[in-house]
């Protein structure tokens, strides 16, 4: 055996030893769900929190089995700090502190949702130390969680747990009426606000995006045909002064400007009502009040300056239609006449030569 080969062998053996040393020592299997439920399956299992509140430690075997995670996850997949039973008692100052201690468990599997959450207003509030800001379990529940959108109206109910006034306003809307009847076409909170990365809706940037949000459904021919709603709403808005201003302000990336009217300014933010319904008279009266919000001193004629999403025709805004028609004839007539005069003039000049 050469000296060199021996060197290699020694080195190889050394490496083997080092890697064996790094490997985890043969550990016992993590506790199974049955192990956990030995204690936590007892309905009277409870503990005392730092603030004196009794915390039930009971987990219902059946409801967990029927949850979205039933049969897929073990208790220790989320409660990662429990490696053996029995385990030492854990101390939390109150119920909220316990929720907050666990909310990062979900990202082990749901990483995409977690990173989106980091861009949302709720996380921003949490990061500022507002402990009431919702984390995963506040919306989705914990051991008994079902799919978040089944039924779909569950989403609006979830948000309304905290956003009580907004929830009540939404409940008065045409969208909510249809939702309650099981209609899946109408928007729930998350369709406009998004689920995890919900942006602050009160910023200028959000205001300038509203028409695009509404147009997402209201320019869908197939969808709107079901309800006899015009899909011209966006184009008529964008062609008018307000829509044009808003879309230009948006493309300029304006941070703060005098906001121009957008969909929600006339139709309501959450309590959007059916414009053709019995309340249409009220809407027309409200329109002037909306106008006066920016146009101080506007009189009763003012709001009819807005053509109500109609293209001018003999029926709607006939005067506008006729003036438009007049120029469609008048401009070619005048310009054509001038061109003929120029051509005649040039022709005669050529003839004279």
């Amino acid at each position, binding site marked *: 055996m050469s000296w060199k080969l021996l060197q290699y062998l020694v080195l190889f053996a050394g490496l083997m030893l080092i890697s064996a040393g790094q490997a985890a020592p043969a550990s016992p299997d993590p506790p199974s769900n049955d192990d956990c439920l030995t204690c936590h399956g007892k309905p009277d299992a409870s503990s005392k929190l730092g603030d004196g509140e009794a915390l039930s430690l009971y987990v219902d075997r059946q409801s967990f089995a029927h949850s979205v995670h039933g049969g897929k996850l073990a208790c220790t997949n989320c409660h990662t700090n429990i490696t053996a039973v029995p385990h030492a008692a854990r101390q939390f100052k109150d119920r909220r502190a316990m929720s907050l201690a666990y909310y990062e468990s979900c990202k082990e599997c749901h990483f995409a949702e977690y990173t989106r959450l980091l861009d949302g207003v709720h996380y921003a509030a949490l990061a500022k130390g507002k402990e009431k800001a919702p984390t995963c379990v506040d919306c989705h529940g914990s051991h008994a969680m079902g799919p978040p959108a089944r039924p779909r109206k569950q989403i609006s109910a979830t948000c309304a747990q905290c956003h009580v006034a907004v929830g009540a306003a939404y409940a008065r809307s045409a969208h909510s009426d249809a939702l309650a009847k099981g209609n899946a076409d109408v928007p729930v909170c998350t369709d406009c606000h998004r689920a995890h990365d919900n942006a602050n809706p009160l910023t200028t940037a959000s205001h300038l995006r509203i028409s695009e949000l509404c147009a997402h459904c209201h320019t869908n021919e197939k969808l709107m045909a079901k309800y006899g709603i015009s899909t011209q709403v966006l184009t008529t808005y964008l062609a008018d*002064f307000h829509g*044009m*201003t808003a879309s*230009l*302000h948006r*493309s*300029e990336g*304006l941070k703060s*400007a005098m906001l121009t009217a957008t969909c929600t300014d006339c139709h309501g933010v959450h309590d959007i009502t059916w414009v053709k319904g019995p309340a249409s008279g009220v809407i027309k009266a409200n329109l002037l009040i909306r106008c006066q919000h920016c*146009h*101080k*001193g*506007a*009189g009763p*004629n*003012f*709001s*009819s*300056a*807005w*053509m109500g999403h109609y293209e*001018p025709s003999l029926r709607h*805004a006939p*005067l*506008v239609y006729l*003036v*438009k028609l007049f*120029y469609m004839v*008048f*401009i070619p007539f*005048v*310009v054509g006449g*001038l*061109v003929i*005069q*120029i051509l*005649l*003039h*040039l*022709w*005669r*000049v050529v*003839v004279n030569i």
Partner: protein
Amino acid sequence: MNEYIQRFSVRQRIEHFSVMLLFLALGLTGFAQKFVDSPWAIWTINTIGGIDRVRWLHRAAGGMFTVFAMVHISIALFMVLTRRSRPSMIASRKDFQDAITQLRYYLRISDKPARFDRFDYRQKFEYWGMVLGGMLMIATGFMLLYPVIVTRLLPGEFIPVARVAHSNEGLLAFLIVIIWHIFNAHLSPEVFPFDPSIFTGKVSREYMEKEHPLEYARIMREDEEKREAETDEAP
């Protein structure tokens, strides 16, 4: 004898120059709004510094145009009413006759072109188009700028009417200027490449004799009378 004849006063030349600049400013800032869907309009708006600034400039230029129009009309009325100036821009029966004579000439029915006075029918058409169109632009522009005041007296529908009229009348004015005015002042064989009279105020006798023979004859006659009067007084 002087080779040139004074055709435009200093005031008229300043008026033309100012209105030319205002017209360009109003056209640029106006069409950027009318054709806002086109890339050049967006480029223009961004280059100027945003829609709010474009609108401010458009309104400022419109306000100045209004002042110029008021001053012009007041002075013209004063001059004509006090007989300090001949009402040379007023359209008359002769203009319609001239148009027909000229048409016959163009079509080679006759070999005699119309003989014009100080302003021919084409110049009068453009002038009155400018004055009446300008008044319409001022009125509709005011309606769009002050809709709250306007709708106290008029129905709300007049605001979109004003918008359609302002936008189309502006387009018409623009087309007339780029087709008609640019032809007459630059491309027409008589003046090509450039008729500088509205900037210098002077035109050649040759040009006057050909394009405005009646006025030229009158100027000659008046000069003659003046000279005779001077020679009468002299001894």
